[in-house]
């Protein structure tokens, strides 16, 4: 499998490490309910199909990426810098 890093181009997946589902967002601060924290830490969908997930290009540009990968075929539809995804998410919330 190869991942097309938006900064470095197509690279072998050995250059990356996998974190997991990109969907969960950390509950806000110390006020978070224990149940919400539990869900954030432990609960994950186990999708068969398109999955948005976090990868780290540790042997390359050291950027975090959000990769949309089909878990059945490993076909990758989209790779975006996680920084941009987080920024969009923040401004989306603000709007």
């Amino acid at each position, binding site marked *: 499998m190869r991942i097309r890093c938006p*900064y*470095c*181009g197509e*690279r*072998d997946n*050995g*250059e990356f490490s996998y974190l997991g589902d990109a969907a969960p967002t950390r509950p806000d601060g110390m006020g978070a309910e224990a149940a919400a924290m539990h869900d954030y830490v432990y609960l994950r969908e186990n999708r068969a199909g398109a999955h948005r997930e976090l990868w780290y290009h540790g*042997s*390359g*540009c*050291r*950027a975090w990426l959000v990769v949309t990968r089909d878990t059945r075929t490993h076909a990758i539809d989209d790779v975006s*810098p996680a*920084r941009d995804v987080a920024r969009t998410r923040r401004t989306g919330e603000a709007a």
Partner: protein
Amino acid sequence: MSDAVTTSASAPRSAGTPRSAWAPRSAWAGFAQAGRHGRPQGEAGVHLTLREGVGLATVIAADGQEASLGRILTDRLGWSLPEIGAAHLVGEQGLIWSGPGQWLAIAETRAGLHGLAQALHGVAAVTDQSDARALVRVSGPDARRALSKGVAIDLHPRAFRAGQVAITAIAHVGAQIWQRDEAPSYDLAVARSFAGSVWTWLSHACAEFGCAVNREPER
């Protein structure tokens, strides 16, 4: 060998006083030896030049300050900020892309980067890396073939040309490689503490082509 890069422990010392443990020491000392290695017949296919005394510093743009950083570099130093994957060098001096919002500034000597931190105050973090990297120039007719054995990126001219830089791994060691010219010649930078491992790989990779090792500047 008379111009060995390092003095081995058993070699006689010319001066009576022992060398200070704090004396500057090449990143390649103890690993690389100047001279001809590998295939002895014919012209050397690969030339390895150990680059020493080079000034290096990382430049990391403050959030949202990339445009100001580019402007200041151009106005004060006449440098241009390389786009993603590019190295902008004039002679031995300039900037090399090293990640989103990050560059490696390089000059022939450490003094060449003097004043960079002050000039970029407020728009970028500048950190001296002159002693943090081991730097080697790989040139000669078989330079591309030798390097290709270790990197998982395509070094063919259709994919990688002069003025381009890649951050990748060689023999599991993080490496930054930029192509200097279309000869082709490349500069390879690795973390100094990995110099030994990288040298073991590099010298073996170059052996079949015949390899000439020298130092720059000559001392």
